[in-house]
C-alpha cells in the first residue's frame, strides 16, 4: 500500500514565502504559488538527506540553512520549469545504514524526483549503491574522492563541490613556492590521513619538494607532545590535518613545543570548521596558513555574488550566524548545497524535466555540463564539471591567519586541481 504523503515543514514555510509574493502580484490562490503557467504545477520534490542527528549534526544544521535559502531563491525566481521546489527532509542520523533506508523512503514513499545533500563520505558510500538500484539521481555534497574515483555509479553525482584529491594537489604549488620544499606531514593514522599523505606527497614531489617526515597519530590520541620531537630540524613546513575533539589540544601543544620560532605551518580548515579562529588556545595559529573551500571571513574584494550568498544564508562578515555570532558556520563546505541545487535546476531545465520518467535525461543533461561561471548560482567561483567522472572542479583558497582574521593570500586555479580521469560513468548503462 502506498503511504500517504507527509507534511513537509519546509514546504509549507517556503510555500508561504513564495505564495505571499505571488498573491501580492497576481492574486492567485494559495497552492498555485504563481507557478500555474507550467504544464504541471505539482512541485519538484527534492529529497534532502540531512545529518540531523549523529556526528554530522553541526554540518546538517548549516546544510539545512543553506538548502532552505537556495530553494527560497529558486522559488522566488519561479521555481524549476515553472514548478515550485519542495524539499523533503529525512534524517540519515549520519549513519550509512539509515542513509540507504532514507533513499528508499525518498523513492518509494515520498516519490521525490532526486535525492540531494549528503556530506559524510561513509553515508554517501553506504547510500549510493541503493540510489543506483532505485534509479534515483543522487546529488552529493561530500567532497570525497569516492565519486571521481569510480567506486560509485552513474546515478551519483557531485557537481557542486570539489573533491579532496583536487583540493590537496592544488595546494602543492603554493606550499613549494612560498612556504618551503621540505615538508613534515602530521596526520591521523587511518584512511583519511593516509589519503592526504599520499596525494600531497606525490603533488609536492612534482613541485620539486619532498616530505621529510610522515608522522601518523593514532586516532584515539588526545595528547601530542611526544610526537613533536619527531619533526626533523630541516623541516620548512608542517602540513597538518588533525581532526576530532582533540584538535584544539593539538594546536595548543604544538604552540607550546615550538614557542616563538617555528617552521611555516599549513593546514586544512576542516580541522577548525565551525570553530572561531580567535578562540583561546588558537593564538598559535597566527601567521599560519589554511586551505579554505570558501573564505569564511569577508574579504575586501569579495564578489557581489559571494556577498549576496553570505547574506542569503544569514552569515556575518566573520562567517558566523548573524543572530548568534558565536555560532560559526561550516562555511568552507556548505556553499556546495547552494551550488548543487542550482545545478539540479539547470539540469532539469536543460532536460525539460517533467517527472521521474525523465531522470536519466536529467543525468545526461548534467553530464553534458562543462563550464559553470561564477555567478549567484555559483558564488564560490567558476566551476568546471567533468561529466565522465561526475565531479566538479573549482578554485581553492589559501588563507593566512593575520590578527585573528583569515585573509586569502592565494587562489589556486581550477587547473591546479585537475588530475587524470579515473572513471567514465557515461559508459555505464542506466
Amino acid at each position, binding site marked *: 500500500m502506498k503511504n*500517504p504523503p507527509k*507534511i*513537509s*515543514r*519546509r514546504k*509549507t514555510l517556503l510555500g508561504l514565502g513564495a505564495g505571499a509574493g505571488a498573491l501580492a502580484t497576481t492574486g492567485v490562490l494559495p497552492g498555485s504559488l504563481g507557478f500555474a503557467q507550467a504544464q504541471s504545477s505539482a512541485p519538484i520534490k527534492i529529497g534532502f538527506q540531512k545529518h*540531523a*542527528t*549523529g*556526528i*554530522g*549534526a*553541526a*554540518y546538517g544544521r548549516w546544510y539545512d540553512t543553506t538548502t532552505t535559502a537556495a530553494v527560497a531563491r529558486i522559488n522566488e525566481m519561479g521555481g524549476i520549469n515553472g514548478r515550485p521546489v519542495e524539499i523533503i*527532509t*529525512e534524517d540519515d*542520523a549520519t*549513519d*550509512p*545504514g*539509515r542513509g540507504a533506508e532514507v533513499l528508499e*523512503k525518498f523513492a518509494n514513499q515520498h516519490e521525490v524526483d532526486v535525492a540531494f545533500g549528503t*556530506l*559524510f*563520505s*561513509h*553515508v554517501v*558510500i*553506504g547510500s549510493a549503491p541503493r540510489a543506483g538500484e532505485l534509479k534515483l539521481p543522487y546529488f552529493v555534497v*561530500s567532497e*570525497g574522492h*569516492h565519486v571521481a*574515483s569510480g567506486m560509485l555509479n552513474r546515478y551519483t553525482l557531485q557537481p557542486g563541490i570539489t573533491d*579532496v*584529491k583536487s583540493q590537496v594537489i592544488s595546494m602543492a604549488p603554493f606550499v613549494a613556492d612560498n612556504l618551503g620544499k621540505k615538508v613534515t606531514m602530521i596526520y*591521523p593514522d*587511518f*584512511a*583519511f590521513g*593516509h*589519503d592526504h599523505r599520499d596525494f600531497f606527497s606525490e603533488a609536492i614531489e612534482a613541485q620539486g619538494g619532498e616530505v621529510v617526515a610522515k608522522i601518523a597519530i593514532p*586516532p*584515539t590520541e588526545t595528547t601530542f607532545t611526544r610526537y613533536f620531537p619527531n619533526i626533523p630540524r630541516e623541516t620548512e613546513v608542517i602540513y597538518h590535518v588533525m*581532526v*576530532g*575533539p*582533540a*584538535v*584544539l*589540544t593539538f594546536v595548543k601543544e604544538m604552540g607550546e613545543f615550538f614557542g616563538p620560532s617555528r617552521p611555516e605551518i599549513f593546514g586544512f580548515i*576542516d580541522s577548525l*570548521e*565551525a*570553530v572561531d579562529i580567535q*578562540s*583561546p588556545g588558537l593564538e598559535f595559529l597566527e601567521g599560519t596558513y589554511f586551505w579554505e573551500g570558501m573564505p569564511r571571513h569577508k574579504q575586501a574584494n569579495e564578489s557581489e555574488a559571494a556577498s549576496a550568498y553570505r547574506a542569503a544564508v544569514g552569515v556575518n562578515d566573520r562567517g558566523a550566524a548573524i543572530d*548568534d*555570532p*558565536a*555560532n560559526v558556520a561550516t562555511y568552507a563546505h556548505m556553499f556546495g548545497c547552494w551550488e548543487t541545487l542550482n545545478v539540479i535546476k539547470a539540469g532539469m531545465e536543460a532536460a525539460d524535466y517533467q517527472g521521474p520518467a525523465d531522470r536519466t535525461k536529467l543525468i545526461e543533461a548534467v553530464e553534458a555540463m562543462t563550464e559553470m561561471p561564477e555567478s549567484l548560482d555559483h558564488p564560490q567561483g567558476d566551476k568546471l564539471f567533468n561529466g565522465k567522472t561526475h565531479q566538479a572542479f573549482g578554485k581553492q583558497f589559501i588563507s593566512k591567519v593575520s590578527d585573528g582574521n583569515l585573509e586569502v593570500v592565494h587562489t589556486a586555479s581550477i587547473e591546479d586541481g585537475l588530475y587524470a580521469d579515473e572513471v567514465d560513468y557515461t559508459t555505464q548503462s542506466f
Partner: protein
Amino acid sequence: MTLLVKSCLAAPLAVILASGPALAHAADQGFVLLLPTTAYIVGGTLTVAATILLLILLRPGQLDPLMRPVVLGPPRAKRDWRGWGQLFAAIGLALLILIGLRGPTDPQANLMPLVLWTVWWMLLFVVQALVFDIWSWINPWPALLRVLVPESKALITLPAGLSIWPAVVIMAAFQGFVLADAAPNDPERLAIFAIGYWVFTLAGMTVFGRETWLRQVECFTVLFTLIGLLRPVKRSSIGFPGWQVFSKHQLDLSHAGFILIVLASGSFDGLYETFRWLARIGVNPLEYPGRTALVWPTTLGLYGSILFLTAIFALAVFLGTALVKGSVGFKTAFVRFSFTLLPIAIGYHFAHYFVTFLVQIQVVLATLADPFALGWNLFGLGHRRVMVGFLTVPGTVKAIWLCQAGAVVLSHVLAVLLSHRTAETFCSSRRDILALQSGISILMVFYTIFGLWLLASPRGA
C-alpha cells in the same frame, strides 16, 4: 582501495543536536579537553571521600532528624484534578503520535521525538525526581480506560509475587531501544512504538486491572514512582532529599534490579560514546560508522554493563554483610542499599543530558510555533533562532561542565548519606555501621571517579 572520509571527520566541535537521548551530547569537547579536568575529578572524588569520613564522626542516629520529614499541616481535601491532567496528557500523546505519523520527517522539526526525548525523558525525569510528582498528572495510560470503564476490575489476577519483575524486563528492553536502536529519533518509528506500547498497556490494564498493571508492569510509572522517592516534598511533608526512601515501602529484589538497570543504562549511555569504548570494540572514534553498524556491540555492552554493575554492587554489599555477621541478611541489604544508588542515577541523568537539553529545548520551542507544519507562528516562537554558539565559548563550556560535574558529585554525596542512614537501620554500633557500608562506600568513591571521567572523556559517537 583507500576511501577518503574527509568530511566525516571534519568537525572538531561538532554539535550533536540529536533529539534522542541516545545521541545526546553537545560535543563541546574540544574545550572540555583543554580544561584541567583531572584536577576537577580529584577534587570531586575527595569531596565524596571526605563526606564518608565526616559521617564516621557522627554518633549513630545523628542523621535521623535529617531524614525525618516535616509535616506542613494536614492534607487539605481538595478536588483531585489529576484525572483531567492525565486525560489531557493522553490527548497530547495522541496528537504527538499523529504528528509523528504525518508530520515533518525531520526529527528536528517534529514534536514527537522532540517532546518525548527532550521534554519528557530529559526534563520531566529530573522534575519528577527533584521538584514535584508530575507523572501523577501526565500519566497518559489510565485516562482513556477510566473514561470508558470507570470501575477497574481485573479479569485475571497478576500474582503479587511477580512484584515489578515485568517492569524490570520492559525497562531493560526500553533502554535497549534508547541506546541501541538504529533510529530512535525517527518520528514515524517512535509513533508506531508509542501506539504499540499504548495498546499493550490498555490491554494489560483491562485484563489485569488498572492499578496492578501500573504498579507492576508499566515500566514508566514504576520508574517515575521510584525516582520520585528522592523528592524532598511528598504531599504535605517535606524533608531532606531521599527521606522517602526510609518511609514504609514494600521493597524487594525486583526494585533493586530496576534501579540497577536505570543506573547501569545511564552510565553505559555515557560510556559507549567514549573513545575508550569505541577503541575497545574496534571502532575508530574519528570514523564513527553510525548506529546501524553497532546495534549488536551496543546491545551486548548495555546488558553486559547491567550484569557487571549488579555483580560489583552485590560484591560491595556482600563485603559489608560479611563484616557484620548476622546483623542483616545479604538479600535485605542488597535491596535496601540499592536505593542509595538512586541519587547517582538521577545526578548522572541530569549531567549527561544537560548540554543537549540546553540546545534541544530551544528546538522544541521553535517547533511548538508550528506543531502541525501548517505554517503557523504561534506565540511568535517561530522566528526564534536556535542558539548553539554558546557551546563554542570557552567560558560557557567551563561553566556548563562544572555544573554537570557538580551534579555528579552532589548526587554521590547524597548517596553516601543515604547509605550511612541505611546502615544505621540495621546496625547500632558505630563499628558495625561503618563495616556494613564499607563496600558501598568504596563503590561510591570509584563511581564518582567513573562518572566524572565520563564527562571529561573525548567522545566519538
